């Protein structure tokens, strides 16, 4: 029942967007900006860049809403545009390279996963921070295809079938890419 109501609301929103109603567009931005920012940030790992991408996505949506057929739902359509915009973003490699060199911490911090979770111990917090930096840095180094699958699974919580549909790949490929991503990431922070 709830999904029906959501559906009606979405249909109504799309119809108002197609009529060019500005307030409908504001609702669209408010409703989906966090979801799109999450995907954009997950892929680019750059705040400024993800904000620009999301802005471009909404401009693109405004231009193309008349061609939207509602087959995959509004969120699916927006997600797809965001992923494509991220992957086509011209400056992505340049900025990602810059981002991956922002860390001033030494990289030889091994045995990080052994950090004991003993409250707010400064050493533990420091180690946790190191792990986080290493994981994020290595997510940025994952091949694009693998990273997108990892982002959609981890940040968006999409099922293998949904990811397969989005990326136009097989379910087995989704599983393999996720396995590959985890293997690379764990390898990067292990002993």
């Amino acid at each position, binding site marked *: 029942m709830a999904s029906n109501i959501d559906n009606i609301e979405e249909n109504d929103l799309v119809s108002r967007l197609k009529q060019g109603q500005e307030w409908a567009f504001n609702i669209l*931005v408010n409703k989906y900006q966090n979801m799109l920012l999450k995907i954009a940030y997950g892929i680019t790992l750059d705040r400024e860049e993800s904000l620009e991408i999301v802005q471009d996505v909404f401009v693109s949506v*405004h231009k193309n809403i008349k061609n939207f057929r509602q087959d995959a739902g509004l969120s699916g359509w927006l997600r797809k545009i965001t992923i494509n915009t991220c992957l086509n973003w011209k400056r992505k490699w340049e900025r990602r390279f810059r981002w991956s060199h922002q860390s001033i911490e030494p990289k030889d911090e091994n045995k990080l996963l052994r950090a004991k979770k003993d409250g707010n111990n400064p050493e533990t917090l420091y180690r946790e921070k190191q792990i986080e930096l290493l994981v994020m840095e290595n997510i940025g180094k994952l091949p694009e295809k693998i990273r997108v699958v990892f982002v959609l699974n981890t940040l968006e919580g999409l099922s293998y079938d949904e990811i397969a549909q989005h990326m136009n790949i097989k379910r087995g490929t989704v599983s393999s890419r996720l*396995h590959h991503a985890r293997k690379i990431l764990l390898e990067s922070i292990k002993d």
Partner: protein
Amino acid sequence: MKKACKIYDEKTIGKFVDNELSSEKSKTISEHIETCPICDSITAKYNHLSNIFVQSTSKQLDKIDTDLLGQNVLEQIKREENNFFKKVFDYFSPKLYLKIASIVAIMIISLTYFQERLIRPLDIIGPSAIVNSVDGNVSSVMIFETKKSKHTIIWFSEA
């Protein structure tokens, strides 16, 4: 040396973590994990990775000021709509461009193909000169007749 579970591989544990297995299989693996330190460790590591990514992303997203996002988007749209060149481009839709390009291509091909037949004969409307008779001593006469333009060229020299 890395230890591996003899019953379940890492990929299957990954599917378990992602809740991509049947409820029956999930239950079996869940019970197995309680007694298998290897699978338990893999599950913990996979969950840890996900948590790090989710939390780190969330922290970064909190720093993004989205208050002006909608306003910026609308301003960008208006700027683009008021752009003269954009208006011209939009007026000529991509389909029309395709048609124009096709017509131009056909014209170029046609002109190239018919060049020999249409353009060249026009250059040569008729004979440049007609010699009816030759006075004086003619040592030799040579006549060339081309197939296409039917030109007759007379060459002679006085002795």
